[in-house]
C-alpha cells in the first residue's frame, strides 16, 4: 500500500544552519504518528517541506505517492496542516474564513461539512464572530477547522496544543482520535510527551536535523529497559548503591538533603538487592516507589546520548 508520507534523503539548509540532514521517514496510511524533538530539531522544517511552504535542497517528499513539488496540487489536496503559529485573518468571521479555505481547495459547496467541523470543534456559536474577537483557544480551533475543511486523508498537526487549556486539549484529542479511527493518517508534533505516548503508535525523534530514533512507541520505551526506585530514607545512602544512583540535575543536593534518591535497576528482581543494601547500611525506608520509564525519560536519554 502507498505510504501516507514518504520522505527520502531530505536535506535543507538555511545559510550555515543544517535544518534537515538526510532524513528518511515513512508513515503508513491510518497511522497516528509522532514527530518529536527539541526546538530547532527540524520538525517544522520537515512539515513545511511536506506542505510546500519550504523547498528541500536534496531529497524527495511524497504525500500518498504524490511528490510535493512535481505534483503539488495533488499532494496539497491530500494534506491538511495545522500550523504552529496562531495566525488568522482579522478581516473575516469564522464561517467566512472556513468557506474561503474550502474554496482555495476547489470545494465551492461545502457548507454541510463546514458546519459539521464547526460543531465538532465547538465553534458553531462563534461562526459569525470576527476572528479578532476570539480567544487564543478558539483561534486555535479555527486553525484546526481550516486544516480539515477539505477532508484531507493526511493531517499534520504542528504543536496544536501549545498554550491550550486542558479542556480544549482533551476535546481536541478526542476529535483527532475519531478522525484517526475513521482512517485519517495523523502526524503530530508536540512538546507534551505524555500526549505523544498516549496517542502515537509510532514515533520518530529528530535531533539537529537527523532522525535519531524511529520505532513503535511501546518498543521505543521497552528498549530502555531500566526501572527506577525512588526512595526517601533516613540516614546516608550506602556506598554499595552509589553505582545505581541516577543523577538528577539541579535537585541532587536538595534531594540528598531530604533523603530522596532515584536508583536505577534492570529488573524487578534487583529490588531485593537494593533493600538488602539499605538494611546492611542501617537505613530506614520512609517512602519507596518503583517507577517505569516513560516517553519523556526515553526522549531525554536519546537526546543526551545520540
Amino acid at each position: 500500500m502507498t505510504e501516507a508520507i514518504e520522505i527520502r534523503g531530505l536535506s535543507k539548509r538555511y545559510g550555515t544552519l543544517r535544518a534537515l540532514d538526510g532524513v528518511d521517514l515513512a508513515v503508513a496510511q491510518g497511522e497516528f504518528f509522532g514527530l518529536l524533538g527539541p526546538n530547532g530539531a527540524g520538525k517544522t522544517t520537515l512539515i513545511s517541506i511536506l506542505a510546500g511552504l519550504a523547498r528541500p535542497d536534496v531529497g524527495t517528499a511524497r504525500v500518498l505517492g504524490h511528490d510535493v513539488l512535481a505534483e503539488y496540487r495533488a499532494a496539497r489536496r491530500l494534506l491538511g496542516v495545522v500550523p504552529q503559529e496562531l495566525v488568522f485573518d482579522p478581516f473575516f468571521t469564522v464561517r467566512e474564513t472556513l468557506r474561503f479555505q474550502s474554496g482555495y481547495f476547489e470545494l465551492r459547496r461545502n457548507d454541510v461539512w463546514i458546519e459539521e467541523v464547526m460543531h465538532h470543534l465547538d465553534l458553531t456559536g462563534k461562526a459569525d464572530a470576527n476572528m479578532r474577537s476570539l480567544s487564543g483557544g478558539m483561534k486555535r480551533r479555527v486553525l484546526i477547522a481550516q486544516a480539515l475543511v477539505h477532508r484531507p486523508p493526511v493531517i499534520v498537526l504542528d504543536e496544536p496544543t501549545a498554550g491550550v487549556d486542558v479542556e480544549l486539549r482533551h476535546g481536541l484529542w478526542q476529535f483527532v482520535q475519531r478522525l484517526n479511527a475513521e482512517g485519517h493518517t495523523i502526524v503530530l508534533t508536540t512538546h507534551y510527551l505524555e500526549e505523544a505516548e498516549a496517542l502515537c503508535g509510532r514515533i520518530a525523534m529528530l535531533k539537529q536535523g537527523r532522525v535519531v530514533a524511529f520505532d513503535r512507541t511501546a518498543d521505543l520505551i521497552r528498549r530502555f529497559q531500566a526501572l527506577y526506585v525512588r526512595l526517601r530514607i533516613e540516614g546516608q545512602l550506602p556506598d554499595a548503591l552509589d553505582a545505581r544512583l541516577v543523577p538528577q540535575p539541579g535537585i541532587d543536593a536538595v534531594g540528598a538533603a531530604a533523603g530522596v534518591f532515584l536508583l536505577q535497576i534492570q529488573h524487578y528482581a534487583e529490588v531485593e538487592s537494593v533493600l538488602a543494601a539499605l538494611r546492611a547500611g542501617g537505613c530506614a525506608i520512609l517512602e519507596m516507589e518503583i517507577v517505569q520509564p516513560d516517553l519523556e525519560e526515553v526522549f531525554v536519554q536519546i537526546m543526551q546520548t545520540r
Partner: protein
Amino acid sequence: MTGFLTLLEKELLRFWKVAFQTIAAPVLTALLYLLVFAHALEARVAVFEGVRYTAFLVPGLAMMSMLQNAFANSSSSLIQSKVTGNIVFVLLPPLSYREFFAAYVSAAILRGLAVGAGVLAATAPVAGVAIAHPLWSAAFALAGCAVLGAMGVIAGIWADKIDELAAFQNFVIMPLTFLAGVFYSIRSLPEFWQKASHLNPFFYMIDGFRYGFLGAADVDPFVSLGVVAVFFVVLCAGALALLRSGYKLRS
C-alpha cells in the same frame, strides 16, 4: 478556477469591508484636489484650446486615484498577510502561482475601477465633464489598474515590513503619478522635463485616459496604449517569475 474565484472573492470582500477607507476616502481626497485646484487655477490656466481646466483635471485625478488604489490593494493585502503570517492560508492550498497572481491583480483592478467610478461620480457634476471616447477611457482605466495591481504584487512580495512598502509607495508611486501630467499638460514644461515625462509610464496611462474624455492628448493614444501594454507585460513576467520561484513566500 474555483481556487482563483475564491481568492478573488476574498480579496474583494477584504477591501469592501473597509470601503470607507478604501473607496470613500480616496474619492473625498480627489474631490478636495478638484475644489482647491479649480478655485486656484480655473481662470488662469488653459491647457487645451476650448477645454476648461476642471474638465482637464477631472480625468487626471480619477486616473491618479485609480492607479494609487490599485497599487495599494494588492501590495497592502500581501504585506499584511506576510506580516501577520496568514499568507500561509493561501500557500497551503493547491493554488497555482498564476491563479494567485490573477486573483490579486483582478481585485486590484476592481478596487481601482470602483474608486475611479466614485471619483468621476463625485467630481463630474462639479466640473461638467463629458466622455468623448468611452472605450479609450475604459481601456486605459483597465490597463492602468492592471499595471499598478501587478506592481503592487511585486512590491508586496518584495517588502518585508510595512514601512518598506510605505517607502515604495511614497518615493516611487506618488512622485510618478503626481509628475505624470495630472495637473498640467507636459507641453507646458521646459523641454528637458517634457522628455523626462516621456520616460514615466504613468504619464501614458493618464494621457490616454484623458484622451477618452477630451478627445485631445499630448501623445497619440495608440502609442500610449502600446507603452502601457509593454509595461504590463514586463511587470507580469517579473511578478510571475517571483511567484513561481517562491521568492520571500516559500523558503
